[in-house]
């Protein structure tokens, strides 16, 4: 075969190419392109083709320029240990190299896995409907706001969010709100969680959605979710709750506190720390089923075949009625409904959802609850130890925490974070004298060293 300067991923021999060109009736491949001379490109990109080995070496060298730090970072992106079985099963090419399940008869496996993922979210949220993924927590929140705008009967245009919210998440929300002519406003917080009285004062007819998080961006567990839900309910606003898949396994059920929509991050299961790549949760009450964004997998049945029409094979001559899965309610989606679709989303995070489902199966409910409980215990224990140091107080907020907490330092926070980095640790500097520290099973074994480094730099 001649692959000189060609793609290594096309199997054509020169003879085959010639035979194919002859069958078409042209002399060469260029004759098949119908690009006017005036806009044709005849330059070079200047990209040299490299071998696999060269590229692996090159990228390894580049990535080695990231400092080798122990990260105590969170604020919306979390790494937990991902068992090997997750990689090995999810990397099976039948999953990884498949497309969206437009032909369900040959896609039962992925459809069932996504159906199981949806079911896991239904259990964790208590809500009836969960889609099979948004891009991440931030875009899921944006989609919740546009859903609220569509389903809410009055003409309000305000989305209320907590004043302590990850800046990037709010920025994404604002972009989704922009097109729907919605305005994002904040309500105050008191010691790390919602100031529900202030929220109640602010709430009114103009509000289409009230958003609250538990855990918050600073890791605080919200204690008055039901009260927030009531405020939303009284003004006929939607109550959207943000959380994450691990926390949901122990926290009070969103359904029980009156959540209409649950958004958040599920990438804490299945994905290693990956520079912010995520898996957006979107679950809601049955009432909004036909307004849900994104893909939904449903159970159905094999249609009974016409009499005597089957020619045998795997389905069996008397098949029919057997449960099967399919993408459903697609008239909500952009490829059918175009500008009247519930969202523009097409490609989503399906494979990440598969990974999260496998991870959850591997843990089982026991393992998942243990993991969540450790997120509470480790955070409390590390906060206690940092609190003992002179020049630092933790946690800043007198709340229960999940994975992470804010630390007040007497010195300016940014230089402290820089000094910690020189000691080999990454933490967040979130205010003039505020740091934030996140502990999971990945770094829990390094807390002694972190505390020692704090002592060194404070």
């Amino acid at each position: 075969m001649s692959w000189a300067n060609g793609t290594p991923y096309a199997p054509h021999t020169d003879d085959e190419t010639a035979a194919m060109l002859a069958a078409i009736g042209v002399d060469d491949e260029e004759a098949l392109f119908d690009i006017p001379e005036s806009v044709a490109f005849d330059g070079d990109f200047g990209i040299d083709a490299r071998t696999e080995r060269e590229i692996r070496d090159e990228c390894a060298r580049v990535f080695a320029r990231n400092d080798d730090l122990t990260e105590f970072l969170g604020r919306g992106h979390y790494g937990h240990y991902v068992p090997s079985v997750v990689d090995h099963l999810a990397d099976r090419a039948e999953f990884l190299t498949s497309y969206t399940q437009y032909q369900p008869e040959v896609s039962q496996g992925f459809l069932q896995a996504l159906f199981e993922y949806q079911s896991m979210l239904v259990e964790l949220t208590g809500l009836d409907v969960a889609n099979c993924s948004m891009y991440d927590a931030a875009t899921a929140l944006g989609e919740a706001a546009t859903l609220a705008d569509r389903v809410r009967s009055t003409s309000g245009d305000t989305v209320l969010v907590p004043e302590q919210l990850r800046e990037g998440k709010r920025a994404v929300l604002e972009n989704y709100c922009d097109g729907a002519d919605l305005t994002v406003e904040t309500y105050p917080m008191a010691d790390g969680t919602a100031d529900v009285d202030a929220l109640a004062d602010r709430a009114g007819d103009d509000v289409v959605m009230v958003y609250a998080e538990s855990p918050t961006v600073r890791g605080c567990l919200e204690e008055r979710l039901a009260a927030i839900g009531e405020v939303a309910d009284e003004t006929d606003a939607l109550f959207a709750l943000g959380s994450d898949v691990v926390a949901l396994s122990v926290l009070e059920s969103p359904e029980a506190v009156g959540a209409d929509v649950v958004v958040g991050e599920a990438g804490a299961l299945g994905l290693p720390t990956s520079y912010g790549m995520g898996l957006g949760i979107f679950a809601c009450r049955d009432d909004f089923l036909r307004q849900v964004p994104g893909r939904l997998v449903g159970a159905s049945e094999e249609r009974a075949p016409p009499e005597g029409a089957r020619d045998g094979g795997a389905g069996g001559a008397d098949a029919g009625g057997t449960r099967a899965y399919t993408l459903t309610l697609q008239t909500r989606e952009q490829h059918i409904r175009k500008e009247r679709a519930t969202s523009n989303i097409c490609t989503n995070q399906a494979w990440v959802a598969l990974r999260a489902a496998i991870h959850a199966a591997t843990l089982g409910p026991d393992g998942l609850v243990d993991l969540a409980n450790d997120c509470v215990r480790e955070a409390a224990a590390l906060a206690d130890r940092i609190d003992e140091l002179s020049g630092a107080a933790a946690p800043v907020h007198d709340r229960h925490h999940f994975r992470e907490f804010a630390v007040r330092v007497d010195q300016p926070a940014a230089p402290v974070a820089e000094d910690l980095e020189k000691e080999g640790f990454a933490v967040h500097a979130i205010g003039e004298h505020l740091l934030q520290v996140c502990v999971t099973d990945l770094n829990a074994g390094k807390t002694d060293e972190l505390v020692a480094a704090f002592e060194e730099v404070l």
Partner: protein
Amino acid sequence: MIHDQANYEREGEDVREPLLSEKGQETVDVREDSPLPDDLTREELTLPNPSEPETARHYTRLSQMNWAIDSGPYPLGSCTMKYNPKFTEDVAADPNAAIHPDRSARSAQGNLELQCRLQEVLADIGGMDAVTLQPPAGAAGELTGILVAKAYHEHHGNDRSEVVIPASAHGTNFATAATAGYDVVELPSGEDGRVDLEALEAAVGDETAALMLTNPNTVGLFERDISEIADIVHDAGGLLYYDGANLNALLGRGRPGDMGFDVMHYNVHKTFATPHGGGGPGAGPVGVVDELAPFLPTPRVREAAEGSGYERFEPDHTIGKVHGFAGNWLVLVKAYAYIARLGDGGLSDAAAKAVLNANYLAERIDLDVPHGPFHHEFAATAGDRDAADVAKRMLDFGVHPPTTKWPEMVPEAMLTEPTEIEGQSSLDDLAEAFNLAYADTDEALDAAPNRTAAGRIDQVGAARNPRLSWQALDGE
């Protein structure tokens, strides 16, 4: 031709591989061992508790009931199912690259450098001046691009209300324009399947923010009048948006920037062979001309002053963010590795072989292809047969069928894109599957598929009686 897909049918039961929940669930008393007070916690949690061997077997069986590009031909038009080189997975799995997005720039130089390199090659390939990698999928790239266009117009005190889109465009274009708050003006296709210049003249005006265009278009035709199209839109003060879904056909022969496009997205799973993962993750980098660069999402990444590495910065008039963090990083790394593997010659050859394959396959099938000359994909018509039925029958012959009944300008369309990865014999098999299915009896088409894990599935029933979780199946 015959093909049987694995099928774990259970005798005497109406299920195949049972749901994890049917294999056994466990209820845990959450409060028993909780460090939290009862009023913050749920009482119990019920989920499946398979052992690891059971988990491995469950997902392996599911995988065997799933078609993939590694299983065989997957010629979904517009979806560009290329082979996903295995080594790119290993490149992306480098633990040194698996860092948190909130790292300081100084401690994340490796990732920033790779982002910069990818931005540069994408800009070169598209003929663009600046690129953001943040959008997590093609549709997210569209929304980013249209929001950038909107911010640009608003910055110049020039509010506009409409986005013009050809009728044959991807559904995402319409939904994106609506999400960004624009009214959609649908442009009817000309008789030859291309943009009708007179219709375009009539459609654009003072309210036109942008024209969204795919080129080659969704039936594979190059919009030969692209320079005139660009002039019409630009003369009206609008911007030209390039939907990158079909960029794979142009590699090395045409660049959107040279055709007058101002803003574009790249579909990395289509053009740069990253795995589609059964629905995602993708990545939808956006390229723009200089005038639009100040509006790109924040942060951008660039090479700092000489010798001081790479840095993040906020563009002057940024639209803000379109993803919570830096987008789908692992996917972007795979795209970089693919581009590096192919280089100039490979990228150009990939386009050539994709166009060769589409033309050869069209030559070998008995179905009519009304529009040409097409490039990497063609829309055949099933004529008086139902395209969806023909597609179901093709499944029995061991190939995945094309995209059916779209675009609507071709009746009973079978939009076919074999990509460059199929060789002649594979294309011959694919053609035979087309021809056998197309010529089969009405009864056979109606009964198809027969040899797949599941027979024809009741779609109407699924939508009429939605059961979206195993909880909803309880009692059945």
